[in-house]
């Protein structure tokens, strides 16, 4: 793979950091180069406040986990700050809180909001907040890495967190346990490895980033460091799109709006119930996303999305935006006779489009 900035690498950067991108956004990234693009992805965009206000109106007062999943899907499709949503989804998967185990209204919304608040901020603050988050405790008990015994006096009643020192059996309070967890080198290593799995696929993040993270727990800085590292380019097409990425990587460039409830059902059928990962470890991801059934299902979903596109882009725009025109020559030749929606469907069925 060429190491000079080109369309393929611009696409790679936007795939890892957003849920999908338009032709204009891709061309902008190509023109701006990696440094400027990374800065823009990390910065809070000017229209973020207005967007948050418009989304707040969509959240039902007693939001069920399913409602919260649908509002979240709307954000992922429409947010002007996609890296924030992508990081929120990463942390959601990290803590693995299953909506099906949180029947109380409002709690899942609270959980996702908490993760969003810290998603690009400080991990130590996030871990402490999750350790006292009713949804997380109801679904999974204490968060990963933290001493479970420290939570023996903790109860969750009517969606409220209570710590009763009298019923407590361990040597540490929950706050102490979180602090102790943070002081252990394994914690920073685990977090950096998982963030690396998201952004780099199989490559390993530079050791210097782990050292820095163990001192400041700065998630935004860690992500920026990985995106700017040489290893970042090694992850090119070394991962498989999740059903969510597959759907939005088509819908966004084609300008298609998907009803969130419908999208939620379609993604569930392909193995990604939002917000309901299969275990505390989150979705297994990678090759597990694809089996004979889900590949057929993705093809059906792609056809549905493409059928909703009102103005299909021209040939070259489709090839550039969906696969950055990067496929073996015989594959591109096989597409030469196709145009419009037929071309879009053929591209969506290609392995190059399944890869991320």
């Amino acid at each position, binding site marked *: 793979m060429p190491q000079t900035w080109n369309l393929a690498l611009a696409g790679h950067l936007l795939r890892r950091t957003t849920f999908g991108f338009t032709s204009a956004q891709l061309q902008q990234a190509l023109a701006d180069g990696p440094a400027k693009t990374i800065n823009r992805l990390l910065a809070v965009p000017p229209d973020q406040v207005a967007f948050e206000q418009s989304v707040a109106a969509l959240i039902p007062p007693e939001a069920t986990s399913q409602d919260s999943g649908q509002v979240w899907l709307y954000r992922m499709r429409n947010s002007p700050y996609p890296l924030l949503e992508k990081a929120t989804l990463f942390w959601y998967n990290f803590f693995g809180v299953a909506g099906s185990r949180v029947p109380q209204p409002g709690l899942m919304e609270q959980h996702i909001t908490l993760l969003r608040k810290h998603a690009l901020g400080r991990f130590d603050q996030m871990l402490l907040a999750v350790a006292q988050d009713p949804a997380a405790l109801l679904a999974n008990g204490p968060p990963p890495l933290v001493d479970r015994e420290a939570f023996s006096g903790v109860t969750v009643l009517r969606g409220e967190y209570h710590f009763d020192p009298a019923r407590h059996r361990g040597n540490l309070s929950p706050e102490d346990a979180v602090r102790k967890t943070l002081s252990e080198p394994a914690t920073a290593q685990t977090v950096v490895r998982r963030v690396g799995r998201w952004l780099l696929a199989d490559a390993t993040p530079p050791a210097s980033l782990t050292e820095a993270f163990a001192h400041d727990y700065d998630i935004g800085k860690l992500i920026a460091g990985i995106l700017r590292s040489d290893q970042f380019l090694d992850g090119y097409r070394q991962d498989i799109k999740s059903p969510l990425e597959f759907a939005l990587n088509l819908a966004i460039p084609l300008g298609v709006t998907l009803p969130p409830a419908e999208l939620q059902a379609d993604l*569930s059928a392909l193995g990604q119930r939002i917000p309901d990962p*299969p275990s505390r470890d989150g979705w*297994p991801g990678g090759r597990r996303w694809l089996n*004979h059934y889900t590949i*057929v299902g993705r093809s059906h979903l792609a056809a549905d999305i493409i059928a909703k596109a009102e103005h299909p882009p021209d040939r070259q725009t489709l090839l550039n935006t969906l696969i950055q025109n990067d496929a073996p020559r015989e594959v591109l030749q*096989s*597409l030469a006779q196709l145009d419009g929606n037929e071309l879009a*469907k053929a591209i969506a069925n*290609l392995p190059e489009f399944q890869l991320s």
Partner: protein
Amino acid sequence: MTRRTFLAASSFLARAAAQTAVKPDRDGAILVVLQLAGGNDGLNTVIPYEDDLYGRARTTLRLTGNQVQKIGSGLGFHPELRGMARLFNEGRLSVVQGVGYPNMHRDHIIGMQSWQTASPSPQERTGWLGRVADRYADADRGNVPVAFVGRIPAPMAIHSREAIVPTIREANDWALSAGIDPGIDARRDTALAEFVAHTSVTAFSSGHRMAGVIKSSRTPDYPDLPLAQSFHTVAQLIRADLGLRIFLVEQGGASPGEFDNHANQAGNHAVSLRELSQSVAAFCDDLAHDRLLDRVLLMTFSEFGRTVTENGRHGTGHGAAAPVFLAGGRVKGGLIGQHPSLADLDNDALKPHTDFRSVYATALEAWLGIPAAPILGPGFTPIDAIA
């Protein structure tokens, strides 16, 4: 484990691994699990019509010797189970009596969860069939052995940790009318891209095969009932040979479900059992027509039976033990185990004498040939039900 089950286990693995479009294996055993939602009244399904205690407890719901489909031993099927009575007489249907587990839960959600997870832990997030999928899905080839066929959210029985278990509403969900799109089949230069290309080729040809089955198959005689339509879909999926070995289907919708008859049970129960019997009979007849019934074992379950005594509203409450039906070309046929005694009840419910996990173990070990212990935990021996 005997040498025979060991060999069967290894051949199941080999078959699962070798399942590609190249050489469809037509001899593989298939399990179909049918969930009856709401707690089916086993006592008015397989009826001890000669037992005075039955007649006295069921003051208005009782069915008499003149009404039931007699199957011997003083027992009769509910009058609406005509098709299933025929299968019983043909030796293609067995009744495992008195199935349950110690201290059965009488709450729909917890009761259903117990049968679906087959785990004593309320924290368990996977279902017993989901664990089979995790163990036998072949991630490198994209093969998945388990599917749910139905229109309700996927029941917990198929919840898995890693494998993605399909929820199929109709055969078209797996069908692709077009052939393999241009360009999928080309060589790729990374291992991951090769994996995606290879899996896509087999996936697209499976979708194409499914479309062929939908187009070409004769129109078998299924009644226009939701359960019958699910079975029709299962039969089409079996014919398309997609590598699926286990199907879960349901009758009665999501919790609490249509078998939950607390009032005016007689008419409602008759309608549900008619749908059950007509659908099971149509499925077995369809498969028998194509000589596929010998490959299939159908097993029913419900979260609990009902109370022996009917309530003041001509209905019944949540009970405990109930019968499980096994149907297929290679079941032993007949009655398995005794009808639970009506003189020895637990809080007005029949006591189980056969653990449902032994019935599951029969389906896994004696039928599919895969060891049951990794799925169900140790200690559940198959019952003698397969010929």
